């Protein structure tokens, strides 16, 4: 485990589907349930819109953690989008793990529009996990030219 800088704050990108998780994030907001400012949300229509390239690009650009949030399985606004997302992300995350990248840096969570509290809890937990992991050295190393 690497040493963590004292005031280290990770950079976290959260992809949220418009219908459930983004609304859940809004609910967390209107309920004033806080989570770290390091979490930045990108709105997508559905978790199935999240292309693995977005995730890799985020890491390449310096993100320390990427989380994808969608409707609970069975509740997708588009019926089946999150089922496809679930398979894609399962395979992608497993591949990143296979390449030796810390598996805790990527996560999928199902958060409904009614789960503001869950959204906030998930983000707090994920931010904590990523903070403990420290900077994305594995990918930063790769970004360095040598």
């Amino acid at each position: 485990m690497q040493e963590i800088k004292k005031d280290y704050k990770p950079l976290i990108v959260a992809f949220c589907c418009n219908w459930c998780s983004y609304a859940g994030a809004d609910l967390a907001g209107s309920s004033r349930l806080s989570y770290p400012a390091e979490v930045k949300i990108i709105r997508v229509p559905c978790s199935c819109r999240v292309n693995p390239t977005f995730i890799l690009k985020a890491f390449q650009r310096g993100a320390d953690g990427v989380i994808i949030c969608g409707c609970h399985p069975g509740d997708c606004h588009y019926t089946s989008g999150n089922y496809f997302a679930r398979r894609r992300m399962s395979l992608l995350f497993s591949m990143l793990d296979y390449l030796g990248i810390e598996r805790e840096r990527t996560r999928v969570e199902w958060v409904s529009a009614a789960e503001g509290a869950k959204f906030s809890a998930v983000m707090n937990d994920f931010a904590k996990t990523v903070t403990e992991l420290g900077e994305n050295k594995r990918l930063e190393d790769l970004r360095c030219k040598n």
Partner: protein
Amino acid sequence: MQKLNELALEKAKTLLANGTVARVLGWKKGELGYDLEPAVFYSESDLEGFIYNAFSGANLSKYLIEESKKEGKVLVFLKPCDSYSFNQLVKEHRIVKENVYTVGIECQGKLDVKKLKEKGIEIVDGVIENVDDVTVISLGKEYNFVKEEVLLGKCSVCEKHLLSYDEVISLHDKRTPKLDRFEIVKKLEAMTADERYAFWKGELSKCIRCNACRNVCPACNCLKCVFDNDASGIASKANSDSFEEKLFHIIRAFHVAGRCTDCGECSRVCPQAIPLHLLNRKFISDINRLYGEFQAGEDDVTKGPLTAYTTGDAEPSEVFGGNK
């Protein structure tokens, strides 16, 4: 095995002569005896350059994308592994099946030139192939090898069998592989994350982005690759930094996941000897484990595992196969 070459040649000549096909897609002799390359033959005289032997490793199916569009039928020789790619390409509407005359041809595994070179063989004058061993003649000397020593990686674990063809040329039963296809994947999974990271960093940093893997891959058949398309946001001609290698190879493997037949061409052609097939095989092994056994190209209708789902699929948090 010499007999296979004769039968194939005979078949090509006959079908050309009676007008069943307008051209033949096969392998052409090279300068050095082992450097066969895919070629199209239009006449009997052309066919003088034709050869099918232990060096005919190249997968011909991808060439059919262009060849099957042209006037008249094309005869193609398909080894077991090539035929899976063929089916997959038919499924993806990339080959006009009606324009192709397929001849399945026996294959007992092809030789890895890199391995022969390691054994000091630089020039090949001839090759005598049996089911389990092979004799290579180089500068007048004969070298005998057990197949496992000199087979291409993809061939030493090949479990593929002859699928349906218009005709089949086969004299012997196919040899059964002595190695497990997923052995190395499992070994990697058993390593710690740090070890895996070190392994891949070592391998992928060798990449020179020559794009050979992409160009040879039958599943990489897009009109324009995303890496060549500025609008994709990931376009790059060369690796500007070492992350790009990962980006390129992960995305390439992801794009062919569920479509890759594990033909192993990527690793065969890699000039840097990067075991790229281990990325594809990881996806295949995960797919088999999580969503049930699936072999791309086994037929030309079944939906791929990434375009299907069940409501009870595993959650991304619980899919990790390997060690932490």
